[in-house]
């Protein structure tokens, strides 16, 4: 007597699970998209910052600043090599 009722429940449950996983996969796909662009942005910002550091520390610029500040090459005896 309960058999048709049970079958109906199983069918409804199956449909529900199917719809639920479809919905979940789409939600995750959106999340992946968001994370991908976030990851790409962070990566490119990281590259830009690394480049900026290297630009700031460019030897020609450092030399120019040192000259502007009247800095001179230290006496050879006052150089301590750390290694």
């Amino acid at each position, binding site marked *: 007597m309960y058999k048709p009722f049970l079958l109906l429940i199983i069918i409804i449950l199956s449909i529900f699970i199917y719809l639920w996983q479809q919905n979940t996969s789409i939600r995750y796909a*959106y999340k*992946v*998209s968001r994370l991908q662009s976030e990851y*790409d942005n962070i990566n*490119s910002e990281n*590259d830009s910052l690394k480049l900026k550091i*290297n630009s700031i520390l*460019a030897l*020609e610029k450092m030399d120019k600043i040192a000259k502007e500040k009247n800095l001179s090459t230290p006496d050879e005896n006052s150089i301590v090599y750390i290694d």
Partner: protein
Amino acid sequence: MIKNMKQIDRKILLTLVVFIFFFILFIKLILIQIFLHTKINTTVEKMINRENVEIAKRGDILDSKGNILASSIKKYNIFLDPKIIEDLCKLKNILSKNGINVKEKNLDEFGKTSYVPIAFNVDTKFVDKIKNEKLKGVGFENKYIRQYPEGKLLAHILGITGYSGNGLAGIEKSYNEVLSGNNIVTKNRRDGRGHIIRDKFVDKTKICGQNIKLSIDRTIQFIAEQELRKTFEKYKAKKAICIVQDPKTGNILAMVSLPDFDSSVKIKDIEILKNSAISDIYEPGSTFKIVTVSAALEEKKIKLSDVFYLENGRYKIANHTIKDNHKIEDCVSLSKALEQSSNIAMVKIAQKLGKENLYRYIRKFGFYSLTGIDLPDETKGLLKDIKKWNALSLPTISFGQSIGVTAIQMINAFSAIANDGILVKPSVKYIEKSDIKTVENICNHKEIRRVISIETAQILKKLLKNVVDFGTGKSAKIPGYTVGGKTGTAQKFDPITKTYSLKYYIASFCGMVPAMNPKIVILVIIDEPKSTNYYASSVASPVFANIAKRTAQYLNIIKDD
């Protein structure tokens, strides 16, 4: 009865209407599902599926200490699609607030195009700001822009890339395949609002080009460039070259060619891209004498104790007179002949050696062959076939005339002497320790051939030391270190008069520090110095001394003097 009939009619009518309604739906369903499904599917697929080209980031170029010398950063071009712009006035206002001005006053002025670029090379933050305004008809295309944080430093070694990102010169060209990476196409889906739905995460680091680490040390490069530029500007020279090499491994630590260029700025004259250090041929003059002496010593045609008669400074051969520039004694030892750079002594040594032997050693030292350096457009120099040598070929070649060499060949020949007679392949790419375990293995890996014996190399190093201690190379001395080297002042050949010019010279000095156990070999060439004092001892040797002093300090080379 009639009432009942009417009720039945209504029921039938209602049933009929419902039936017809469902029948029409059924027909429509059949039409859609069976006859139109392909067309509809294709349209929907087109609407939701998007193919996206993921552009690979070009690999970075690093110096031997890991400093970035060239890198690519993501930039955007912003464009308008006039066909989907809804409110041009509003769009123009918002864009102008962000510093982008659109000239067109109405949509018709754009014409039929769907692509109107309005801003170039803007960064991600700026693009995000515009994106947040949610403007219809504004598009973004990303690309990578090559940047060189050190500016002009290493311009000739790094080279340049073209608009498409391919290397056109220097390392960018020779290692283009390694640096480029692989663009990939990813398939994504788009929802009704245009949002991309990705079904997988793309790790772009895996498609990126590989980084290249160079043997160049940017500090040594900076030292060489700074010192060379001073002399280049002081003497208003046509060109100037400096190379610093590690003689054991053949690694190039610095390579400068002046005039130079800024890789980040658009190049107008392609000629300036030519790296003179590997592409220009010059007559070496007296620096080439090391080849003649090495060959004669190795072949045991002369001894260290030999004495040479200098013919009172004028030596006649085949109706030509070979002269010595400096007044030297009547008879000199081998060491003195090299110290005072006697042409006549070299001719006499070459005559003892013979043309076959001299030719063989010229080739053994790597002249008239490509060194195999990993930079594009290397030339092999000029040397007449031995069968075509005339009576003057042997004597003139012995002191560095009638032969064309490149700077890289010359320093490599000096490095062979510094490296106890072994010629190694020069390179600008750093060999990772993980690839090759020991320094000895690096040497074996790059060894080309043994040119002279250890004993001959030791004698040569001593002779070169004497040149700096007592001879023409005195101005190359540096405090705390022994230096070995050779000056060269070569007259330039004038193609118009077809004689050697008395106006234009090439001053060069090639030397090693410390003299007997060299850690670095440096070559300095100044092309056409505009001065009455054009001699290498005045023009090139002091540059060598300054570079050698600062480099030795920087590399912490142990003092030996």
